[in-house]
């Protein structure tokens, strides 16, 4: 227990230092990109020098970069994620609205992909059939290779345009406004296609890793020994092989959860889903520095926490892993 507390404390310190470094590097990197928020906003239609100067002054971008950095980090320490130049609003206000749509999409599909992918691998392994193995591998390769925007559009064309089962895009029906339970059903109805697409894309990752892990474990010496002393195959698989094989996909699952806050730029765009990915992409192309840094901060935090939780979880599952 003492070890555990020490471990947690050390990890927290590491996370704080890491986030500080991430923010510093990001700050200077994104300021180094060509153009600035004023350049993008004025674009090719209004590029007068007066407007650009006035905007830079308004945004505080006329100050030396070191001053801007200290100001930004000072605000961050006080819990202020910064201010979006473009939207004239605090970064947090803009990010907040995107968290729920993002997480419900990414986490739901990560969980589904994990369950389906791992189960598929287990099923194929127990089947011990060459053709079963082959077709599952083929399917996973195909899904892995398919570009997500293409799959998304094909899903739309099949399930929305042809079969008319699901709405094409968005999060809610806009022509009629539903409330209460009807509103929830409407939301889920809109959620099905994006979640299924994202799940399909992620299944191969879990399938392949679990499958490899099972094959590896089945070849271990202890399995041979246990088989030799007469442990039934079924028990052997369930008690030893499966338990040991679950660790690698679980690690991947943890990393995926960490990245869940970043959303999925491409699928959000295709399904017109108002998630974090699109907000981030807009912030990048508009050079909305502080909004972008706010998103990066949240990402760094989320990933650190997810990795941390995964590490602890794995330590419980696998006593060989020491928390030191």
């Amino acid at each position, binding site marked *: 227990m003492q070890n555990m507390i020490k471990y947690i404390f050390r990890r927290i310190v590491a996370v704080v230092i890491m986030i500080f470094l991430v923010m510093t590097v990001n700050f200077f990197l994104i300021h180094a990109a*060509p153009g600035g928020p004023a350049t993008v906003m*004025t674009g090719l239609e209004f590029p007068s020098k007066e407007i650009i100067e006035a905007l830079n002054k308004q945004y505080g971008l006329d100050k030396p970069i070191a001053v801007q950095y200290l100001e930004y980090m000072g605000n961050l320490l006080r819990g202020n994620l910064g201010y979006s130049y473009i939207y004239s609003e605090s970064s947090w206000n803009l990010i907040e609205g995107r968290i729920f749509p993002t997480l419900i999409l990414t986490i739901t599909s990560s969980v589904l992909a994990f369950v389906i992918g791992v189960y598929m691998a287990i099923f194929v392994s127990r089947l011990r059939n060459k053709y079963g193995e082959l077709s599952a591998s083929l399917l996973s390769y195909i899904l892995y290779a398919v570009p997500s925007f293409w799959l998304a559009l094909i899903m739309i064309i099949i399930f929305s345009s042809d079969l008319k089962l699901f709405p094409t895009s968005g999060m809610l029906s806009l022509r009629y406004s539903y409330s209460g339970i009807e509103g929830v059903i409407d939301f889920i109805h809109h959620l099905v296609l994006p979640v299924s697409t994202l799940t399909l894309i992620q299944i191969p990752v879990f399938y392949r890793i679990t499958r490899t892990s099972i094959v590896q474990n089945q070849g271990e010496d202890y399995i041979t020994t246990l088989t030799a002393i007469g442990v039934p195959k079924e028990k052997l698989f369930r008690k030893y092989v499966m338990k040991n094989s679950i660790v690698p996909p679980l690690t991947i699952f943890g990393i995926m959860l960490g990245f869940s806050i970043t959303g999925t730029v491409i699928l959000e765009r295709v399904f017109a889903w108002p998630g974090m990915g699109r907000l981030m992409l807009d912030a990048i192309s508009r050079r909305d520095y502080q909004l972008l840094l706010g998103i990066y901060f949240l990402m760094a935090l989320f990933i650190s926490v997810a990795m941390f939780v995964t590490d602890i979880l794995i330590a419980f599952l696998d006593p060989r892993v020491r928390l030191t």
Partner: protein
Amino acid sequence: MKKFFLVSFLIAIVIFVGVASTTPTRGGTMVIAYWGDPISFNPDAQIDDAGYGIYGSIFSKLVTLDASYNVIPDLAKSWDISKDGLTYTFHLRKGVKWQDGQPCTAADVVWTFDQIMSDKAAPAHANFAAVESVEAPNDYTVVIKMKRPYSAFLSFLAWYGTFIMPKHLYDITENGSPVSWLNNPYNQHPIGTGPFKFVKWVKGAYVILTKNPDYFLGEPYLDGLVFDEIPDQNTALQSFLNGEVDFDDNVDVSQLGILKKMPHVLIDDSLTPSRYYLAFNVGRRPSPFHDKEVRFAVAYALNREQIFNLAIKYGEVAEGFYTPAIPWAYNPSAKIPDYNVKLANEMLDKAGYPLKNGTRFTVTLVYFQGQEWSDMAKIIKEQLAKVGIQVNLEEYELATYIQKVLKGGDFDLTLLDGFQGPDPDNLVLRVGTGGDINVMGYSNPEVDKLLSEASQASNIEERAKYYFEVQTILSQDLPIYPIAEVVNTYAYKDYVEGLPFTLTGIGINNYAKTWLKK
């Protein structure tokens, strides 16, 4: 006899139904597949193209533009311009109310314009450069005094960033200091005088509006208007074909072919005052194109009809040096050189660029991301290779492009488009010495003089004469090589009637006269 009655009865029904279908029906909600997310609902403080398409339904201007770029009355029912062009007197409609019930008066107009003139970052700020003062002698009269005559002023007043805003909500203080109009809470839920009232905005998802029954041009036919933000054009197309959307405002030119074959789908692909053109580096960093002969040689080597057919497909091949979408200012006799490879080769030989190992010289063509741009660039590269000019292509995202081309002048050739209205005075920006969008670094004192005279001339015939001459000079100097005219890309279902771009005399983004025939 019975038969006769029956027939006449049937005819009567047919006529009745026919008539009934042309009288607008009220009710219904129109859903628009919209391309972008507005920054805020302050229509004048920032450049916000995504907002501009929505502001026109919530707010009104003093005067506005219709789809043919005519200046038409809006809050002002009429106006007089003094003979010397120095005094504009606007007569406002009486009884106009803000959507919160307060009266809209000349005081709101004066406040809005003063605000634009005091905020250098306001998009319309530069268009007010010639304004001396804005005054309200009474509640329904606005007088604008000019420092110098500026004939494009009315068009610019009717265009961008000039929506009249409610003084009573924006002229406020907090703890004794005035609140910046950028931070006003009404930027999130606007109050205007337009045909629709703001209901809800979920950022990145949709904007919902409901009709304003007190609208001064009459109660809108639609009950509501929804701007459904669908950034992906393929998805927008599917939503439109699936009936979730009535009007697709996010059509890519490449989709027009498919849409034209669809039943119950109507398309507007008329010319818009924007054009694709190739700009030469005429006076920025050193480039072979500082030499006029070389520019002409390139023009002869290029086949813009082929570029158009392969890369653009919809619109028109360019023939002159200004947009034909503003016909009064378009000079049809200032022509672009036509394809003639032999002549191109001769000119390049004469200009001192002989063919060595199949190449005369190497240049860089810089363009920004986008299918049509990269297609055009590739075809230009191929066409110029045939006369021995080797073209290196460089593609950048917009911010980097602006930095490199607009600010840095670091290119030989570049591809551009962009709005050339609402008035030909826009040419000052594109070809005037030091103009904001004059990427070429082109400078001709004669052009500058003509443009300045055109902007001060009072009547349209006189102005047209100056602009015609400018285009003639451009055709001789050739700082740009126009390729094609850009078209509107709107698709809508055949039951949607009275969209603003199908009418004249109503503002470009005003859906007050739109109705659903269902």
